[in-house]
């Protein structure tokens, strides 16, 4: 046990603050919006949205353009500032910008236009950024809690709708339970290795050879905590209910950016703190990958509600990502890169799909079912075309981002000699085609039933978000080279 005199006190220097300018920017805009919101009239949330987009854009730009390439620590190893974390900063900001653009009209229509919406959304982004750059299990925990609490609030933001409240409560209860696991795991790891610092933990585990049982238990508990956040089976139960109940843009945000954050921290902790336990977590995640893909895809088959279907599909996509983590664990650089590439693609296509859903929604109408999409293809041709693109991309059909995402992951799996897993993966992709196409069938091949009133007003920010997503998907599908470079350079430094 270190005595008090051993403890070195660390005083932050100005460099530390420079390194976390993106996080600080988000924080500043958060507080700024909170204050400005008092000046605006009650129903004026559009300016707030614009300010939020500005803040997110600044943080993302600063991460990608200014800090890019740095490889250092901040606050005595509490944060690792490297391309990996910066990449994720930008990804979160991008996902959040899309979410804000989609939300702008949605929250007005649903009668929940409050400036706090964006404040909490920025809070979630802040939590994610902390997670992705975490260098210590303490920061991991702080980040996850910041994110989770923001998401609990956002899931229940539609106070008039009972399902929204139900989603929030479910998420809160199960989420806190998972956090308990995580915390317990952190405690056990600290107890056995004497450190919160993931690099020190990694060195300790390597140096001391075979792990003892307590350490293993700790690692497993941490893994469970992360699996919950990433909605990996069998810890995925919350996802369908929460996505369905949460406001649509938030469901999109949770299934993309929040999931990306969970994978960011999962991969960083596994590859830095736990390479010594590789044999153990490899076996565990191997099974998790298989059951996640299978449960996600098979459950999605029977869903009549598109949001729920997308929730199960997002579980399945998490399964594919685990394959990439496994390949990366075997030392394949391709695997690590493919996680990042896939996450960009997935964020674009899923945000896009949720964007179309929320653009076509109308207050107090059950218009999220597959059947209610009948004939949309001819009534809202642009939205339907975009939705088709997103679904085809989710299914992994070329020439789209989703195809090269899957291509990348399976390429890494084949390289890592995990052909059986790759075969299970591609078969799952085949199953997924079926339920994605069901929506396409409804949109183009079924005659519309009774006319469902939909939002007639084309609100340009939502259309812009959908357009950005669609353009990104096509760009990644036709010329993936740039994005591969981005993913590769994010992996090279740091991890």
């Amino acid at each position, binding site marked *: 046990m270190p005595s008090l005199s051993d403890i070195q006190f660390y005083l932050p220097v100005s460099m530390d603050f420079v390194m976390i300018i993106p996080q600080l920017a988000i924080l500043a805009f958060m507080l700024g919006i909170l204050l400005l919101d008092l000046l605006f009239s009650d129903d004026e949330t559009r300016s707030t949205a614009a300010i939020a987009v500005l803040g997110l854009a600044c943080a993302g730009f600063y991460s990608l353009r200014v800090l890019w390439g740095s490889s250092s620590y901040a606050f005595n190893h509490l944060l690792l500032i490297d391309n990996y974390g910066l990449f994720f900063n930008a990804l979160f900001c991008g996902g959040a910008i899309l979410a804000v653009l989609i939300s702008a009209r949605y929250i007005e229509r649903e009668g929940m236009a409050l400036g706090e919406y964006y404040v909490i959304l920025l809070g979630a982004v802040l939590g994610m950024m902390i997670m992705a750059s975490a260098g210590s299990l303490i920061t991991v925990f702080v980040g996850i809690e910041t994110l989770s609490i923001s998401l609990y609030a956002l899931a229940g933001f539609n106070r008039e709708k009972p399902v929204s409240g139900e989603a929030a409560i479910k998420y809160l209860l199960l989420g806190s339970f998972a956090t308990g696991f995580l915390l317990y795991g952190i405690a056990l790891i600290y107890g056995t290795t004497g450190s919160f610092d993931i690099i020190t933990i990694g060195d300790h585990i390597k140096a001391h050879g075979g792990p003892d049982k307590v350490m293993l238990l700790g690692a497993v508990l941490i893994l469970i905590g992360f699996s919950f956040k990433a909605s990996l089976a069998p810890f995925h139960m919350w996802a369908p209910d929460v996505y369905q109940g949460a406001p649509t843009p938030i469901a999109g945000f949770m299934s993309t950016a929040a999931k990306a954050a969970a994978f960011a921290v999962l991969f960083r902790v596994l590859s830095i703190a736990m390479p010594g336990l590789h044999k153990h977590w490899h076996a565990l995640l191997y099974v998790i990958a298989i059951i996640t893909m299978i449960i996600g895809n098979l459950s999605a088959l029977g869903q009549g509600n598109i949001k729920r279907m997308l929730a199960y599909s997002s579980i399945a996509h998490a399964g594919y990502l685990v394959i990439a983590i496994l390949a990366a664990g075997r030392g394949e650089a391709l695997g690590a890169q493919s996680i990042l590439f896939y996450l960009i693609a997935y964020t674009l296509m899923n945000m896009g799909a949720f964007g179309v859903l929320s653009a076509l929604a109308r207050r107090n109408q059950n218009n999220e079912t597959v059947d209610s999409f009948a004939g949309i293809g*001819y009534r809202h041709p642009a939205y339907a075309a975009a939705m088709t693109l997103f679904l*085809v991309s989710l299914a992994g*059909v*070329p*020439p789209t981002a989703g*195809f090269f995402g899957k*291509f990348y992951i*399976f*390429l890494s799996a*084949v*390289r890592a000699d995990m*052909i059986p897993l*790759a*075969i299970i993966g*591609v*078969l799952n*992709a*085949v199953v997924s*085609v*079926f339920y994605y*196409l069901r929506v396409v*069938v409804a949109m*183009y*091949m*079924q005659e519309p039933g009774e006319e469902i009133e939909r939002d007639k007003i084309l609100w340009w920010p939502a259309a812009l978000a959908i357009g950005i997503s669609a353009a990104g998907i096509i760009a990644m599908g036709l010329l*993936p*080279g740039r994005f*591969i*470079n981005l993913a*590769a350079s994010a992996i090279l430094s740091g991890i």
Partner: protein
Amino acid sequence: MNQLNLPILSLLIFSPLIGVLFILFCGRKSHTMIRNIAMASSLGTLVISCVILYTFKSHTSLMQFEENVPWIAQWGVNYHLGLDGISVLLVFLTALLTPICILSSWNYISKRVKEFHIFFLMLETAMLGAFLALDLVLFYVFWEAMLIPMYFIIGVWGGPRRIYAAIKFFLFTFVGSVFMLLAIMTLYFIHKDITGVASFDLMEISKIIVAPHLQMWLFAAFGLAFAIKVPMFPFHTWLPDAHVEAPTPGSVILAGVLLKMGTYGFMRFAMPLFPYAVMEYMPYISALAVIGIIYGALVAMVQPDMKKLVAYSSVSHLGFVMLGLFALNAQGVQGALLQMINHGFSTGALFLIVGMLYERRHTRMIADYGGIAKVTPMLFVFFLVVTLSSIGLPGLNGFVGEVLIMVGAWSNQFMDRSIYFTIAAATGVILAAIYMLWMFQRVMYGPVKNEKNQNLEDLSPREIAVLAPMILFIVWIGVYSQPFMKTMEASVRDFNVQIEARFKASLTVPKGVKAIVISAPQQQLPAEEKVTE
């Protein structure tokens, strides 16, 4: 560059998309305008393909008009296009059938005209790309990209069970292709490990020969994708559904071009890359081909629905193609390649005629017709020629292909008892005569039983324009097939030489080694031909 000093293959592939661009700006209601643009654009593509055919040098088996630029440099994926004697006629067939289909849909497609033509032109781009791609990933992208437009064409403009048929078509093809994708990746890494070069380029990957036991697996994965597309028995079940439900132009393009994608895939990729597996699987594939020939014919015989009959006859005809292909000699492979083209014309024309009858009477049941010959003499003539071509009457195209295939299969030197396969296949020819003539007889001859058939209109000038080019080629190939054979001769010779050389090389792969690098056999130019620039 190439003999034209133009990226002419890219121009060819993407020219339909220019039409798509124009159509996008058309009003939803301006049907004539959209049709004219689609027609003009596909005729433009046809002109480009004629230029290619005209400047094509038939004395060499080397790739021509090659274009090769890095596409995804990090993985070694190239945008590599090229054309040789194997693909040139298929490309021409694609470019020819597309305007014919668009013309045939003039009245048939009256709903959602804009979307239909957009999808159709996109389909053309994907088909041409798949025939011209010489990079495995590029090929795969085009191969899969064909699915989406075809899926819409069946699913939106098809018959009553169109949704079921469209999804079945999509899923069947997709299942096959994902295994091919994994095989492509495996092959890529084997190649990378042994040569140190990361490349999906077919020409690069052809420089290695994979160990026999791996060949068996990889061929199976490639073969499954292609066998589903061909379709070979027992993977054919999607075909009758897709054909019957698809609108006429969809059926024509499906039979005329998409099925050839499978046999072409065998020729271009699966067979040259895995010759050891070809030899090992040869008896099984030949057996399945023969089963397909007889089974397809027998099932066709009992169909009350004309379109279904033609669909099953495709299973039978494609069986011939596979049989000839796996004979691995000059006659067999040439016959198979020619039969691929023939089938495109004769079955395509059959679907067109069935579609024309359907437009008049809104039924495809054979029993609803009878005695049409007197009412519609023009239709009668066209139908007769096409029927006879499908049966393989001497003087028409089917005969040339089938005879070559039979001769090739008979003299297959790599397989014991190939004679029995040939004899069994020959019964398929007899069966074909039975089911086709029987259908023709029931539809055309006899008294006009049904009152409604009394006043059927004969072919309109547009319909004659649709059928005339098909008839032209049916007769041309039947009477004077020399020009067609000449385009493929060098490539087919080289194909057989390569397979044999690579087969011998695969036997020399030492145990425990995944692959060896081989030097490509020298391309031989026939002495009597002069290389003209």
